[in-house]
């Protein structure tokens, strides 16, 4: 049966209303309104798309397709690598489902006071986490803000080389390269094969007056904590370069924040702060810097400052140096910005308010205890070397399968048949590490889950 012409989302689709409106406009037909679009370039055929369906049938059809997915809550997953499984408190979804937040966009502070305040609170809480005074509007993802941090360093120092450890996430390295093309060379510094830590010797030999910044990640992509931060910071600063750091935020419940070991610019991935993984769609990059004018001027995205109003007892909010961004400066801005990840920033503010200082510390400890338990259990299995590096790890760690004579992909196929998703295969990203997977364990994993993984691995290898 044909659906009726009046569409539920389109109030004026009633033919009678349309006729009246066209009459008011003073035209005979809709066609006259499209006079600017030359006839010769118009589409001459009907679109080959499905016919309209009722709400019920759309739901039924889409949900039927989605039911083919097997999720990380139906299986047991040990995947992290830039998108991590963490519990999302119910309040987070409640607030980000509020239709005022969900459907607002770009109104000024007078109509949208609430979202501006939430953004300021997001900036503030990230500032406390990383111990930096300036935090900007949220952005796409860690990869994108790490690229922004590199571009900022180039602008601030007028130098054109970024040094970063071999252990940087290969995807982020590739995004950084793409964003710095023609602007800066990204060069890699060796790491110690036993500890994984940055080779200070290699860093000293590569750093020069051409170096804009030394960028490290902490914890590293391979899961361990880089503990020579003060030394790296000193080497960078001694050469007039900036020290920039990318972080996973929950680790800062237990780890020293970059602002306390000399970082000039800090970036990171906010997805663990209350966002579902969403197949990678829940990412949220954050970017912070020192409260120094030339740094603030180099920030690419919106910055919201708290301010006062004419009436006592009210908080107002205002954009800082708005002329600096692409919105005003267009091609003179040297960076691009736009629609960001505001709904996730509001959610992150909710998450951090819920956890507070003690909750965050407890969570970081729980994650570490569970991941260390998993390392212990896996290291008891003959043939698996866990972790490869003898440094302290946070929630992720490497597991090498060379001695089992099985590839990670073979191991993972068998695990999947037991309902377990094994760690990310990083054999191609880091060939020097052999057959290695990157495992992630968080507060979501129970001891039973970890024991099940260990038992399954015993059977596989």
């Amino acid at each position: 049966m044909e659906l009726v012409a009046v569409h539920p989302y389109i109030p004026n689709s009633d033919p009678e209303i349309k006729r009246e409106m066209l009459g008011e406009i003073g035209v005979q037909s809709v066609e006259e309104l499209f006079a600017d679009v030359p006839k010769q370039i118009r589409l001459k055929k009907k679109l080959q798309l499905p016919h309209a369906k009722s709400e019920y049938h759309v739901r039924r059809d889409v949900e039927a397709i989605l039911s083919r997915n097997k999720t990380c809550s139906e299986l047991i997953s040990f995947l992290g690598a830039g998108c991590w499984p963490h519990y999302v408190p119910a309040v987070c979804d409640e607030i980000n489902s509020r239709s005022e937040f969900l459907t607002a966009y770009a109104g000024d502070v007078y109509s949208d006071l609430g979202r501006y305040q939430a953004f300021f609170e997001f900036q503030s809480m990230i500032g406390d986490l990383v111990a930096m005074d300036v935090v900007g509007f949220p952005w796409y993802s860690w990869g994108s803000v790490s690229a922004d941090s590199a571009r900022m360093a180039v602008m601030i120092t007028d130098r054109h080389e970024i040094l970063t450890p071999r252990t940087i996430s290969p995807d982020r390295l590739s995004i950084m390269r793409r964003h710095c093309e023609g602007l800066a060379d990204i060069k890699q510094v060796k790491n110690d094969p036993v500890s994984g830590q940055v080779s200070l010797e290699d860093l000293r030999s590569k750093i020069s007056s051409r170096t804009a910044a030394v960028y490290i990640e902490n914890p590293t992509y391979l899961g361990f904590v880089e503990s020579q931060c003060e030394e790296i910071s000193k080497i960078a600063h001694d050469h007039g370069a900036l020290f920039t750091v990318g972080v996973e935020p929950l680790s800062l419940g237990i780890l020293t924040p970059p602002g306390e070991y000399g970082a000039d610019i800090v970036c990171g991935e906010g997805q663990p702060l209350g966002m579902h993984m969403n197949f990678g769609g829940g990412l949220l990059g954050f970017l912070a810097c020192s409260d120094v004018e030339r740094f603030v001027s180099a920030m690419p995205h919106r910055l919201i400052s708290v301010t006062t109003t004419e009436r006592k007892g009210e908080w107002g909010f205002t954009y800082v140096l708005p002329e600096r961004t692409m919105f005003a400066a267009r091609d003179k801005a040297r960076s691009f910005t736009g629609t960001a990840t505001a709904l996730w920033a509001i959610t992150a503010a909710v998450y951090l308010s819920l956890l507070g200082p003690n909750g965050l510390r407890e969570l970081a400890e729980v994650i570490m205890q569970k991941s260390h338990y998993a390392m212990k259990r896996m290291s008891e299995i003959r043939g698996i070397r866990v972790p490869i590096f003898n440094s302290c790890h946070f929630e992720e760690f490497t597991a090498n399968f060379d001695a089992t004579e099985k590839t990670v992909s073979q191991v993972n196929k068998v695990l999947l048949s037991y309902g377990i998703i094994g760690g990310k295969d990083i054999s191609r990203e880091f060939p020097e590490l052999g057959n290695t997977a990157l495992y992630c364990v968080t507060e979501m994993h129970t001891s039973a889950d970890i024991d099940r993984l260990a038992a399954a691995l015993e059977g596989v290898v």
Partner: protein
Amino acid sequence: MQEVETTGYQGVSWKEPIVYQLSKKGRRGHRVPIVEDEIRAAIGNVASRVPEKMRRRHPPELPELSEPEVVRHYIRLSQETYGVDSGIHMHGTCTMKYNPKLNESIARSPKIADLHPLQDIDTVQGILQIMYEFQKWLCELSGMRDFSLQPRGGAHAVFGNAHIIRAYHRMNGELEQRREIITTVLSHPCNGGSPAAAGFEVVTLYPNEETGYPDIEALKAAVSSRTAGLMMTDPYDTGIFDSNLEEYIRIVHEAGGLVAIDQANANSLLGRLRIGDVGADLCHFNLHKSFSTPHGSTGPGTAAIGASEELSNFLPIPIVAFDGTKYYFDYDRPDSIGKLGDFYGVVPNVVRAYAWIMTMGAEGLEEASEVAVINNNYLIKKLLKVRGVTLPWHESHPFRLQEARFSLQKLKEDTGIGVTDVNHRIVDYGLQDMETSHEPWIVPEPFTPEPAETTPREDLDKFAEVLAAISHEAYTNPETVKTAPHKAAISRIDTAPSHDPRRWAMTWRAYLEKARGDKR
């Protein structure tokens, strides 16, 4: 001040403290999962394993609140925010159409929320099918060969397109020579900003005073062997379709350049014109504009890049492909510009837009475009009756597509009141403020309403009535407008910290530090 009293609206005003001011030491809003005894026994005190200098000495100075307090605080902030669901919200250039609840409900399914992006493809066939079919639907809508769903906003997509243009010229050995991107000033700012960020020099064309778009001759003069490409928006945010488009494309192609058309806002063209058919090499659609996904208070968005047959190999990796039995990520694309962003973009938005197209169907998409254009022209008719309002290029373009950019220059000349004041006042009437214009203000004292197809006629009438009322106030009682807003959550803001490093404070910690400094 009678007018102030009769707007019939009062904005929600909680005078809500900053969350830190609500903090009480010792409170907590969430319990984290416990560690089982066997783990505790096996691992012990884990903090001591962190090297001493890497051990956090003081917990972060986050606020301490109970769960009900957190909920109340953020519910109040949501109430002090004005979304599409709140009332008349016609921010132009943004296509603030209704975001169907069905799509929201589907997109929040655990069947998406709990998917990790690196799962074995056998476990994610459902989501891959949706992404694949959606790519194909966008091809049908645009006349392009293939799509990438990876960019997380329009500026990201334009940045990606600029890199595809680079990659194409590099492949042909011409990148060193082709350094320039041509754009038009009425295009979205990212059409200049993103290629500049990608390393191009940008040449900007200005509109002819009579037609509202650049002359063919201006483009011819700008094009040379240095031209890498033309990156522009069409239709413009003036609602004018640049009907030279086909000719521009021919000229740029003849000179060896490529053409990327920003179709972020394609709401007036669905089913009527496909940019690929006109000869564009690249384009992008914003799902958070034409395709009804929510704007989320400014993201997360999704901007899908479309490429012609000649350029599809350059799209970012991965693209979702189908081998006849299985959906998979195709990374084997040697000419690709590589990764533009992390993973595959904002996938839940793809599901929302997929459900939207299913609901609309081909005929519904055409209907949406048609009604969006009728709504806009109806509003133009009403607004032109308001004293002090003019529509630049009205003579040459009496009818517009999705939106129109008006001017309050006359009102300002007559009364001293321009768009900033009017925007403050419009909030008093319970409407969202108006989009003015991207910089630079080619149209003086601009405002740009875009009704989209989901605005009822009654709201169009109301919008025009409110503007007429404010215009009347401006001519008869300007103080009311100059001192607005009167009914908003807050009074006029002190914007001085915007440019004062001693006063700006982007974090509470910086605010406290600077406030202490002031007292000393």
